[in-house]
């Protein structure tokens, strides 16, 4: 079972926090912080698995993470999950985000936090993997998006606002970063600390 899914940036700012097991608020924040410190210490060329430590259930739990440009995606799972399987699940999740947001970047995660949650809900439900088929997930999300579009172009406005933000705050040209099998254009977001 998946205990928690955490996404934070290179500076430890949480971008998505989803717990499937009950932790008090302070402990949640502590887990995010400690996970960040654990993950930050690690080079890129060492393995993607970590032991959860005393915070989340001890040695039976593993942290499985991937690092994409400015973001860390960390899944905290117990021993009943396959490590490599989860590693690819993260990939599926990110690829789906990429499809839904068209070249996903950290900003998308910030400004569409709710949407990211909806996408996640289609992949993982109550700590169990619900769907791993990307097309299916995207289809679900699109069905929901249609609802939104129907609200009289309301979504267009925020989208414009976001792209304006993107343009204003991005002096540098977005760079292409190779992450495994797909290319996600990720802008340099150093000012988002």
């Amino acid at each position, binding site marked *: 079972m998946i205990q928690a899914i955490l996404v934070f940036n290179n500076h430890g700012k949480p971008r998505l926090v989803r717990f499937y097991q009950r932790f008090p608020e302070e402990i949640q924040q502590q887990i995010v912080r400690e996970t960040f410190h654990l993950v930050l210490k*690690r080079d890129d060329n060492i393995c993607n698995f970590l032991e959860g430590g005393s915070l989340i259930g001890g040695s039976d739990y593993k942290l499985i993470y991937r690092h994409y440009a400015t973001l860390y995606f960390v899944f905290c799972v117990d021993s009943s999950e396959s490590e*490599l399987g989860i590693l690819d699940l993260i990939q599926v999740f990110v690829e789906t985000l990429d499809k839904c947001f068209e070249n996903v970047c950290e900003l998308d995660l910030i400004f569409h936090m709710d949407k990211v949650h909806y996408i996640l809900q289609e992949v993982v439900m109550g700590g169990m993997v619900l769907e791993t088929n990307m097309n299916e997930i995207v289809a679900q999300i699109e*069905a929901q998006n249609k609802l939104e579009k129907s609200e009289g*172009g309301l979504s267009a406005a925020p989208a414009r606002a976001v792209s304006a933000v993107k343009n204003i705050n991005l002096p540098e040209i977005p760079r292409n970063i190779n992450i495994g099998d797909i290319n996600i254009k990720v802008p340099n977001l150093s000012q988002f600390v």
Partner: protein
Amino acid sequence: MSDIVEKTLTALPGLFLQHQAAGGSGVPRVSVSSRLGSLIRSITALTSKHEEEKLIQQELASLKATVAAPNTTLRLMKECMVRLIYCEMLGYESSFGYIHAIKLAQQGNLLEKRVGYLAVSLFLHENHELLLLLVNTVVKDLQSTNLVEVCMALTIVSQIFPREMIPAVLPLIEDKLQHSKEIIRRKAVQALYKFHLIAPNQVQHIHVKFRKALCDRDVGVMAASLHIYLRMIKENPSAYKDLTGSFVTILKQVVGGKLPVDFNYHSVPAPWLQIQLLRILGLLGKDDPRTSELTYDVLDESLRRAELSHNITYAILFECVHTIYTIYPKPELLEKAARCIGKFVLSPKINLKYLGLKALTYVIQQDPNLALQHQMTIIECLDHPDPIIKRETLELLYRITNAQNVSVIVQKMLEYLQQSKEEYIIISLVGKIAELAEKYAPGNEWFIQTMNAVFSVGGDVMHPDIPNNFLRLLAEGFDDENEDKQLRLYAVQSYLSLLEIENALYPQRFLQVMSWVLGEYSYLLDKGTPEIIITKLYRLLINKSTTSETKAWIMAAVTKLTSQTHSSKTVEKLIQEFSVSLDTCMRQHAFELKHLQENVELMKSLLPVDKSCEDLVVDASLSFLDGFVAEGLDQGAAPYKPHHQRQEEKLSQGKVLNFEPYGLSFSSTMSSSGCTGRQSPAGISLSSDVSGNSAETGQKETNSLKLEGVKKLWGKEGYLPKKENKAGSSPELQPIAQDSTLVENVDQMIMKKDQSQALHHSEEEAEKQRLASTLFVGLGSESAVSLLGKTDTVSHKFRRKSKINDTKNREVTSTHNINCSSFSPLSNAPYEDNDHLNSFQDKEDIGLKKCSLGSEFLESGLKSESLTELHLVENFSACSLSPPSLFEDNSMEIFHPPHPTLSSFANEISLTSSLLEELNEHVHSDLVELCNNEMLKVSSCKIWKDDCLLLVWLIVNKSSLELKNMNLEITSTENFKILEHPGFCFPVIEAESTKSIQHHVQMEKLFTEEDLSGCVKYKVEEDPYIQLEFSITLSLLDFIRPMKICTEDFGKLWLSFANDVKQNIKISDSQANLPFALKTLQQKLRLHIVDIIGNEGILACHLLPSVPCLLHLRAHEGMAALWFRSSCSTLPDYLLYQCQKVMEES
């Protein structure tokens, strides 16, 4: 899928219109959403945490005002919710918005509802009280015709739902299993899985539907049901063996590419599904050759099909390997799996290497040669920059440790230990090092040094067993007396030199170990006078950082040392100083020491040198005070009551009258019962309770108590099973002939490889080679055995000497002890080997026979180190420890009075009376005769112990002939579980003698009344077997025990239980008095009266082993309203029935 889109699209125009009508233009919307934008932007512009906090607090304040305002539209609310979610994510509490999130989910349109649900699932937890408000919304949405709404409701249910409200939605969700859309069915299955997790008994009835889901035509639904099956099979594999075929078929189809291409991930068909199925098959096939047989083919195919192209195929391969090594082994598959592991280990990718190491660790016990094959890789991993890889490697090395490589491996572990800071890593690693050091230490110095390192690093976080084991090892020693001395001497010396170091701080546990060893063994030092050591200890004692617990240890050590010296100034000083200490404990110690010092003779006898392993006979019943107590009682003093009893009475006193008769005068009965207590060295609390003394001798004899405490931890029997179990738990290696040749080949291969490599490799490489040879020494063919912990050879000097022999010796020498200690375990022992038994028949003394049988059993249990038997051994010693043992004081001696009939009768009576006397602290039934014939009589008695039901069978041989091969067999039923072996055999029962057997019975399935039947079989001389059948009725009440809790706890428990039953029953006039009615319930049903308030009473009980049930009773106009609550769904019904019965009867 397309259907949903369609459906949604049809709903769109309506939504659209609704928004047009309600929302007005898009202008406010922009401003609303840009509020989130501006919030985010301003947060990111900040530089300090403090500023962020200020800003968010402001934001929260404005949000609070907005959401509370009556004119806030739902749409605005939705935006507010998103901002609240954002604030919560950053760690700021926004509980004021929770209720609005629920409202939004209740009232909003689709989009708003979605945000509301999301916010609820992020904000609240399962036990949050607000969640109850959501239940209606969920029920409504589940019934909605809009698929999106249904989906949302199912999602929220599977994320977060109050357990007690499950019944409200369960039928709706069950219906959804038949829904035409697969996405709905799938989510419904997930929701049911959630229910299974949080309240398994509530979904028990729909297991059939799970099976239907497994056979669903849609793959997604089937995959979802696998979650449930994985879980249920993990809990109880045997119940789902029949599904093995289905799982195999599914996996075959998946592997064979029968699924739509849609399910491919990097052209691998449904990899996650495969992983799931492989896990299930592994669980099903474990230790089950027949089931495993079914899976061999598909595993082979999976291995073959998984072409190494992508990470995910490795995931499948890893799972395959895991499964192959889990199920009943098949050589060909194992070979293939071993090759696969090679691929992992040798892979340049770190992730795969990690998994390879993990797999190696897992299989190393079955196949030690694999470690040899990969030794160079393992060496490399040992110095890997990644600490995770390093740790996994150490774990692997830990499993292959033997006497030859132990020092290298432990050194590596210590190195790692020095670098790591994580507490849980330290704890586990320290434990492993201590275990290895104990098992394989090559020498005294090494052992002590290693343990010193362990104690210094592990300090106060390590498991308390480590120092205790260590001290026990030192104290009990090994077979060689000289060796023991050397070891102890070395320990003393090393501690003295450690204490020499100025300003060195040692963990408290280490100090405790030191002080114990110094106190006990410093006499071994030739030159060192106790004075020097006392001075050192004194310095520790006055150290500020020493805790009071450690001080007590040190004080005990000083006391021991004082008895060896004549006069010591330091001791005088110490006594003086601590006699005025503020710490009462220390002060007491000081006074004790002072008094002991005045009486040197007493001190010497109390603290003999090097006698830590011998039992000190303590008159814990304080019988020497009996006279004093009797005097006090005669003069009208109240008998002593333990603290908890007083408390209880205090609680109930104000409210209930005491209906129990006053106790008998104590002075007359006391002396006799006190005597019985005194005779038995083990009898402690029994007589002291009766004589009205305090059993808590407590502080009085702290010195001797300290010793006792230490001994208890390392008690002769206490540790034995644990240790042996550990040694035996490694599965036995099948000695395969080809194995050794294979190893040799591998060795040669490696040698060749080594040689060729050595030519053109650097110095560094040679270093690694050397390390490899030291690490993997002893892993070769001949010592493959030693890997598996089978090596109880001479080389392992630090293995504890077998406690069995010890026990045996003791038992043989003192038959008196045997009768009391080995009786109960004996009765549980399954005897299969009748030869053994017969060979002892010549012996006259029954006690002796029993003891040798006992040890014989123990030995045979240990010889065939199979796990089950070890388990029995564990039981065995657990039983033998359980105080007070039945039949103390030789009550089993055979009587030989002149008149046979009379004698057996007398015998039985004496047995019964002794039985009852010994057990008078437990409630028990009368002795009931079950069956008899001219030769034999079987009777039984129930003893309602606090933690179990004990059935005692008495078999009386009435005849003047010997009964041989007496077998007692209890028929096993699904309702009961008998903790011991249900059968029992006496090789012979002498004429006119009585035997007794006891069984611990547990309830497996709830019932009101059920018969437990059995039979006895026996032989008279060479006649055929004669069989007698009997049965005894057990009722639910035999398993009900009072639960002593306070009113407050009752309240808490009451709220936490979901299952309740209410019933009004008529009560007779006599019961109109509430306390009286409650008293009836207390006596008849063994309920505990928690409290009585006005005309209401609350009672609590629990069903063994630990299912609580609470009762609330309200008496009103001849009616009693009974209200039961329990964590078990059926227990209230059963109890209600019993209650009714009792009320009617009385």
